[in-house]
């Protein structure tokens, strides 16, 4: 559905996207990367706002820049939080419907449906100026869906949504994907993406670092030592038990701190063992966390790999 063929994009002397070749199929695909990774650039290339400096981007077999007919198949929910603030949400969605080529009567019906889907029916007749972040996100999604596009591109759509809103939003995207839509969602938050899809494109500093199933990427990560920090008042006792485990590589006790730092190559086994310390050995564990579960660590691993 969407093809990148050695596509690069430069902004003056800064590279935004570096020699990307990939294909985005139907279903939900996540663009995962930190700020400045090139996610928005990628989406702007697909929506024809930008042209690649080198290489090609094809959407349904066509070059998107300057191909307005193609935009009938594209729905775009931008990251920016800017609107025609004086308009009400309903007026804005209707305006976008008219710009998509529908008559006033058609637009009225489609806008109402779209607003209903995003759960804004009872709140969209006030000026956008007074909307919360979550309401703005919903209205952006409503305008992206009004013309029932085949491809929906969502740039950081979950920003600002409350937990219930996120869940509803994710469910909605799931339903759209089940109807055969191609949905591209950009995000810099790993756990968000994990709840949404297994298919990801991992971007780092403009480069495509990894593609495919998130599980495979996690397996790759797990081949590297995984750090886990345990908070406990019984640091020495906990450490003495952990050091005997075959899948633990290293145990250290930072000074003046009630923590034990562990490195393991088998995080799953380690987490399975952890309750044993409390249940069988009666040791107190206040908390544990892994600094390696964040996106930055994944990038670090993959770059080193």
């Amino acid at each position, binding site marked *: 559905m969407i093809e990148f063929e050695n596509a690069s994009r430069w*902004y003056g002397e*800064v590279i*935004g996207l570096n020699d990307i070749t990939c294909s985005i199929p139907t279903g939900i695909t996540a663009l995962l990367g930190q700020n*400045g*990774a*090139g996610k*928005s*650039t990628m989406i*702007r290339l697909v*929506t*024809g*706002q*930008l*042209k690649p400096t080198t290489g090609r981007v094809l959407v349904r077999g066509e070059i998107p*820049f*300057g191909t*307005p*007919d*193609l*935009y*009938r198949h*594209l729905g*775009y929910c*931008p990251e*920016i939080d*800017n*609107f*025609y603030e*004086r308009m009400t949400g309903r007026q804005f969605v209707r*305006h*976008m419907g*008219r*710009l*998509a*080529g529908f008559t006033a009567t058609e637009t009225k019906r489609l806008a109402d449906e779209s607003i209903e889907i995003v759960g804004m029916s009872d709140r969209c007749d006030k000026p956008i100026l007074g909307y919360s972040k979550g309401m703005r996100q919903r209205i952006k999604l409503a*305008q992206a869906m009004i013309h029932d596009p085949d491809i929906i591109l969502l740039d950081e759509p979950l920003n600002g949504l409350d937990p219930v809103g996120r869940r509803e939003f994710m469910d909605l995207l799931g339903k759209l994907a089940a109807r055969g839509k191609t949905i591209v969602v950009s995000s810099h938050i790993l756990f968000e993406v994990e709840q949404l899809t297994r298919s990801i494109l991992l971007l780092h500093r403009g480069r495509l670092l990894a593609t495919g199933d998130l599980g495979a990427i996690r397996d790759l990560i797990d081949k590297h030592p995984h750090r886990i920090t345990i908070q406990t008042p019984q640091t020495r006792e906990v450490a003495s038990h952990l050091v005997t485990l075959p899948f633990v590589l290293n145990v250290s006790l930072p000074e003046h701190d009630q923590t034990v730092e562990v490195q393991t190559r088998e995080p799953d086994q380690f987490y399975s063992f952890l309750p044993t310390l409390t249940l069988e050995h009666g040791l107190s564990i206040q908390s544990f966390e892994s600094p390696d579960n964040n996106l930055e660590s994944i990038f670090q691993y993959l770059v080193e790999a």
Partner: protein
Amino acid sequence: MVGYLYTSALKDFLRPMRVLGWLVVAVVVGLLAMFLSQNMALRAPLAQYGQISPTLTYKVMALAAAIFASNVVSQEVEQKTIVYLLTRPIPRAHIILARTLASATATFLVTLMTVFAVSIMIRDVGPFNAAVMHDIKALALASLAYTGLFTFVTLIINKAMIVNLMFAFGWELAVVNMTGSAYYLSINSYVLTLANHVESPEYKAATRFFAGQILGPRISDATAYVVLGTLILALMGLLMYWFSKFEFVPREDTE
């Protein structure tokens, strides 16, 4: 689609608060016109109108053109709402054409308020005088030419408003009063030819300078029509080409 783009842009450009602002400008300019006419040496109404209209009304038109031209694209880029326009199934050429025409219409309509205010405030002229009709015709073409030019400037440079205002109040005022062929490089020269104001050499040079009447018209009406018409068409074509060819993405959004 061009029709919807045009009307929606025009509604936006002529929001009630904006129209109110321009109405205040028209009233102030009208009062100024009354003050000037009461203190002018020549008492003939059309002689007074022939001096005051190009001095005041045409400057309001240039100011309006510079402001409305900035609404066509650069304001959308600044406010980042341009993404909503550029990702809809509308040819970019249609977007720029419709919005520029809406901008020219808005310029003309707000200038019209000033035309009427000035004509009412000068004794024995009134809004239905033939001289006023000439002005309306010239200002309609001037609105198209100036908004076309100013919009193009907004497409190619940042801080275009300053450049546009310098052009309108510097170049256009100076060149129309120059000897030699530079005179032909001013839109104002052609517009003032079509306006056909009554010129009175009895007025002081400074007064005639601001009215662009130091040397008087040197162009025929036919030439003025051809040049302005060609310029407007060329500018519209250039706008459509440029907007279709190049990217317009909010600057700070480029990663």
